[in-house]
């Protein structure tokens, strides 16, 4: 039994407790939105290595973890960051250099895999990807799969519909469950016990959260359990799924957190420059991450003025008329 005082912790403790070298890690968020960036930076700062990463279409978080040298293997559907990086730059570079092993799935398949983990079944069926290289080509060799008990022996398996042609379906693709050692998500609000509320799109964060053996939640706002329980219908994750609650305002910056702040287009354009050059990127890692103590210091680099520019409009949940060129 975990009591409340054991769950509420600082980010450094949460990462050092639950994220270890070589662990299987899943991070929430999607491209420019609600990536658990404070946690990503702390993982880089703590120099975690050889991580096996899972995401569906996470952009900025994946790219920084890869760029930070933390990731050896990744299972993913999409490594891009919208208009800011149609393909994530450090990700692209690492794959082309051969330093990052990728297993490709589709977005729905990754989501089904997290859902399978959350449901406690070994796999779920779909009809996506039949006849494609996503189905036919494997990023991880059979040898690698057989060596690592955390990986299924097959990338996916096609089989006949167990009900004959029922529901106009002859063939199904089964995708294997993901059960990460730890999932990290960033949410708008949580209480000390861990009950969490995502505002706007939850994407697949809820499935990722419930699939994990351990769950770290970072939140914009730490509220009382009374307040959370007065908004039952708006909450998605109950406290018993959560191991660590960390209060990190701005914890998704430079990605967006609906109702709190927009993504920072100025920084994302800067990042594109930094990431495109090895020397500049080394400098970036040092100045923006390693020499920075915590996420508040990272926000201080952005500066109050920039944070004010990207602050969410209360009507829309994003920064209206933000210059995003």
């Amino acid at each position, binding site marked *: 039994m975990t009591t409340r005082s054991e769950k509420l912790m600082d980010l450094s403790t949460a990462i050092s407790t639950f994220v270890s070298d070589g662990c299987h890690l899943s991070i929430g968020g*999607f*491209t*420019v*939105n609600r990536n658990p960036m404070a946690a990503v930076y702390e993982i880089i700062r703590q120099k975690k290595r050889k991580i096996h990463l899972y995401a*569906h*279409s996470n952009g900025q978080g994946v790219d920084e973890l890869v760029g930070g040298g933390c990731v050896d293997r990744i299972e*993913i*559907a*999409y*490594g*891009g*960051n*919208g*208009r*800011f990086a*149609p*393909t994530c730059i450090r990700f*692209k570079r690492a*794959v*082309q250099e051969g330093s990052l092993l*990728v297993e*490709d*799935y*589709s*977005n*729905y398949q990754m*989501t*089904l895999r997290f859902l399978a983990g959350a449901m406690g079944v070994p796999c779920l069926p*779909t*009809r*996506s*990807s*039949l*006849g*494609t*290289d*996503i189905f036919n080509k494997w*990023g991880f060799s059979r040898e690698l799969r057989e060596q690592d008990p955390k990986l299924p022996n097959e990338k996916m398996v*096609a089989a006949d519909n167990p009900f004959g042609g029922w529901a*106009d*379906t*002859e*063939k199904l693709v089964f995708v294997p469950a993901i059960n990460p050692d730890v999932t990290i998500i960033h949410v708008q609000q949580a209480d000390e016990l861990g009950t969490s509320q995502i505002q*706007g*799109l*939850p*994407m*697949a964060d*809820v*499935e990722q959260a419930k699939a994990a053996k351990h769950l770290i939640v970072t939140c914009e706002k730490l509220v009382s359990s009374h307040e959370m329980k007065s908004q039952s219908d708006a909450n998605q994750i109950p406290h018993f799924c959560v191991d660590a609650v960390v209060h990190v305002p701005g914890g998704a910056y430079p990605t967006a957190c*609906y109702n709190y702040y*927009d*993504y920072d*287009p100025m920084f994302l354009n800067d990042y594109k420059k930094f990431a495109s050059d090895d020397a500049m990127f080394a400098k970036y890692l040092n100045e923006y991450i390693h020499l920075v103590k915590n996420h508040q210091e990272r926000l201080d680099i952005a500066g109050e003025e920039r944070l004010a520019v990207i602050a969410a409009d209360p009507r*829309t*949940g*994003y920064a209206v*008329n933000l210059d*995003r*060129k």
Partner: protein
Amino acid sequence: MDDYTLRELMTIAAARQINDGAIIFCGTGISMVAAMAAKHINAPNSTIFFETGAIDSVLEELPLAVADPRVMYYTAVNGGLIDSFGYMQNRKTGKQVVGVIGAAQIDCYGNLNSTVIGDYHKPKVRFSGSGGACDVASFVDNSIIFMQHEKRKFVNKVDYLTSPGWLDGGDSRERAGLPGKGPSKVITNMAIMGFDKVTRKMVLENYYPGITPEKILENMEFEVDISQASELSPPTRDEIKILREKCDPQGLIIGR
């Protein structure tokens, strides 16, 4: 109407393909602008939705990604990815979904590559990967593909088959067990292409004003039948005005 770019025309061309009342799945970039244009011009009762789970977003501002907070505001429902891909497959809504997707490479059967150029394990160029495109291309009956018309993009064989088109043509797609139909149209900065009903090979349907069928062929590795092709009508003043003023006033995607 003379003052328009081919990128604008290609956006309008795609918008015109969308029937009123359609449920439009769209991705990032030009496909999103095309969907917005369709809704503003010819398909006011259509619904735009995103794989991220946003249904019927108002899109007061142009999103730069499908997870942009701009897709979350004033939606009918903010669901999750599981919901979104479900709408493409279930009995009620599955057949109504139009998918608008893009890629780095395409072959004559409309198979797409968004993953790698070169060998998968030692790629010359790595791209983002499928995202939801493979799923959309697998599930829906009506998909529209956006491509830049370049020889290195219209290839004899895609280096990696990320999103299924008509596979090897004929009935090969059905035989593979895929539920939806292959792509309906390929829309480029030069032309609109369709697919032959039997062979499922790409055919030229319309070339843009000022572009010849020959020029189109020069920009493709494979041959397409051009015998039935005609010139596309240029965009109207209204279409361009709506595109520039309502869909992408900052020129974030369409440029200017």
